[in-house]
């Protein structure tokens, strides 16, 4: 993991002290709310429905045990004993009081964490593949470049007041687990004709009220010129992005309205001017940062496979967990383990302070002190020996963290919705809970296979509903919460935006509607290997529309 140098530590401390002073001035009446609001947002502090909400950055979703323990401490000491992991691989606390924010930020700084740029019209936390540095299908570990981008984008003087917020995601693997095509900029590791590794660059993707799949702006940018290239994109956006209408201010609208060829030409012109200048990344600096992410010293393990079939007979729950929650590791004898934060009937993405302490202990004991937050609101232990899996699982069972449902219908993304969020129009969490209970039986989930449901409580789409295989969007109509269902979304390299099939449903009718879609799929699939998404792409809207609304 990256460790702060003296500059980083001094920078975060100065920022923490500065915000503590701003809080004191607000409480003393020296700052009005209009003056204070942009200052608190720059430090991740929102005012939501019931209380303040503090969003803390987890850079590229990577944490140490010590850092997770500090989050547990904050949950216990200043909040209500839990935290909510988000689709930006961050964590949010829903109940802090204003006077407690300075000590919270000081506690965070003591473990090299902060809340800077988790809000505002700036470059937000850069997200990446949760299996980065571990996945067997990885071309390159994206985290060193993600760290360099973090340093470049932190308080960047040109890009602190962009037309709108700006999100970057990157993946070092061919299989996109980071939804890069739905980001302002998406970066995918690529190889050029001479075998060099660099980055394929996508631009103008996004969700929200105008969902758009990003477009390729460059097939290959070498590491050394990546900062210059991204700076060129940001400059074009900063210059031409709309500031007159916040709903049209994201770069996706600029790319859509001007066309990718026009934007590419402008970026190339800018790039020609800055390429080879101060933003050129020296190999020595890349090597220095990469050294922080050197793989741990793995043991040589004789046992290199898990007999899942045998375990499913001996201990079905353990067998199911093995089948669903492990990801292939580059090192023989190791796997990455997904710790599901989707207990049946629970609130997606929530973890208690006690659970965070337990996971921190497991990371120390079994995963070389590393853990990750996923954009699908789970946690990951990236480097676990397969010989440790049984012991690890036993601890997860004791602490309510052993749900073997990764990638299944109950592994839903859900935004906080109208229960917490000041922007939401409808509740998300209770919808997720009811669907989870309806499909909670392990046999039913196994029969259905891979199926991603994503739920948002408003059109801003924090719950990524557009890219759910089944998406659910909550709206309010005449005082009633209604839920619009979309089908066919996909956040991966085969990206697609879900289709709206018809009018919305009241909350009580949503689980039945989802069940009709699932039953239609099960009846129509050619084999169990044909997933919901594959079946939808073969069959189209018609059978699913009929399942929801009946025949015309």
């Amino acid at each position, binding site marked *: 993991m990256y460790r702060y140098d003296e500059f980083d530590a001094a920078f975060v401390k100065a920022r923490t002290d500065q915000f503590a002073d701003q809080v004191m001035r607000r409480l003393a009446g020296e700052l009005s709310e209009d003056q204070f609001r942009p200052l608190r947002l720059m430090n991740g502090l929102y005012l939501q429905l019931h209380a303040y909400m503090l969003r803390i950055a987890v850079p590229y979703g990577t944490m140490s045990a010590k850092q997770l323990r500090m989050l547990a401490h904050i949950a216990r000491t200043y909040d209500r004993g839990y935290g909510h992991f988000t689709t930006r691989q961050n964590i949010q606390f829903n109940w802090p009081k*204003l006077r407690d924010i300075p000590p919270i930020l000081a506690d965070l700084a003591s473990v090299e964490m902060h809340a800077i740029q988790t809000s505002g019209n700036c470059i937000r936390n850069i997200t990446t593949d949760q299996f980065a540095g571990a996945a067997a299908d990885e071309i390159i570990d994206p985290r060193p470049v993600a760290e360099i981008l973090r340093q470049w984008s932190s308080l960047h003087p040109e890009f602190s007041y962009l037309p709108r917020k700006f999100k970057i995601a990157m993946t070092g693997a061919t299989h996109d687990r980071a939804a890069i095509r739905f980001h302002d900029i998406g970066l995918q590791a690529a190889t050029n004709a001479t075998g060099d590794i660099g980055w394929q660059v996508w631009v103008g993707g996004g969700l929200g009220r105008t969902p758009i799949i990003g477009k390729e702006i460059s097939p290959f940018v070498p590491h050394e010129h990546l900062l210059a290239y991204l700076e060129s994109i940001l400059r074009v956006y900063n210059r031409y992005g709309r500031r007159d209408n916040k709903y049209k201010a994201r770069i996706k609208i600029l790319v859509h309205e001007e066309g990718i060829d026009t934007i590419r030409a402008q970026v190339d012109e800018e790039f020609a001017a800055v390429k080879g200048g101060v933003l050129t990344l020296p190999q020595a600096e890349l090597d220095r940062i990469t050294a922080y992410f050197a793989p741990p010293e793995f043991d040589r393990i004789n046992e290199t496979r898990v007999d899942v079939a045998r375990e499913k007979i001996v201990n079905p729950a353990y067998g199911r967990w093995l089948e669903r929650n492990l990801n292939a590791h580059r090192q023989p004898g190791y796997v990455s383990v997904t710790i599901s934060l989707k207990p049946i009937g629970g609130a997606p993405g929530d973890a208690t302070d006690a659970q965070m302490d337990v996971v921190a202990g497991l990371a120390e004991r079994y995963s070389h002190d590393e853990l990750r937050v996923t954009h699908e609101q789970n946690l990951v232990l990236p480097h676990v020996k397969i010989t440790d899996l049984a012991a690890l699982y036993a601890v997860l069972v004791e602490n309510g963290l052993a749900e073997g449902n990764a990638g299944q219908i109950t592994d839903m993304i859900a935004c906080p919705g*109208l229960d917490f969020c000041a922007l939401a129009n409808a509740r998300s969490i209770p919808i997720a809970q009811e669907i989870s209970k309806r499909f909670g039986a392990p046999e039913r989930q196994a029969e259905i296979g891979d199926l991603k449901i994503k739920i948002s409580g408003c059109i801003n789409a924090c719950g990524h509903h557009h890219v759910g295989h089944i998406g659910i969007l909550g709206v309010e109509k005449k005082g009633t919460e209604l839920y619009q269902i979309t089908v066919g979304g996909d956040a991966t390299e085969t990206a697609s935006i879900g289709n709206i099939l018809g009018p919305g449903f009241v909350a009580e009718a949503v689980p039945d509607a989802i069940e009709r879609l699932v039953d239609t799929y099960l009846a129509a699939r050619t084999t169990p290997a044909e997933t919901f998404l594959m079946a939808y792409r073969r069959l189209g809207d018609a059978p699913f529309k009929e399942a929801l609304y009946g025949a015309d």
Partner: protein
Amino acid sequence: MEILTGNELMSGATVYLDRAGQWVEDLQQARTFGAEEAEARDTALARTKATGRINSIEIETVKRVGDTIVPDRIRERIRAEGPTAPRFDRQHLDEDGHVSI
């Protein structure tokens, strides 16, 4: 009819303007403004803004059902009671959080 609501500065808690000009936690203590009381409502709103102690002030429409004040919007019913899932008690004012205008 209408009420005035907002979030108290220190705690962020949901609060309502009551008949005595205090900002209190209990929706049922809220002062209701009839259609003919727009001037009084706007005066109270302006005085509150001047204190800087209540944020996100909004005018909400409500009904009286018997002796109970019921907000028209679901959002306001959730603000008054706390989140429905997971169920949590609403935020409360600190000891020094009471605000008079």
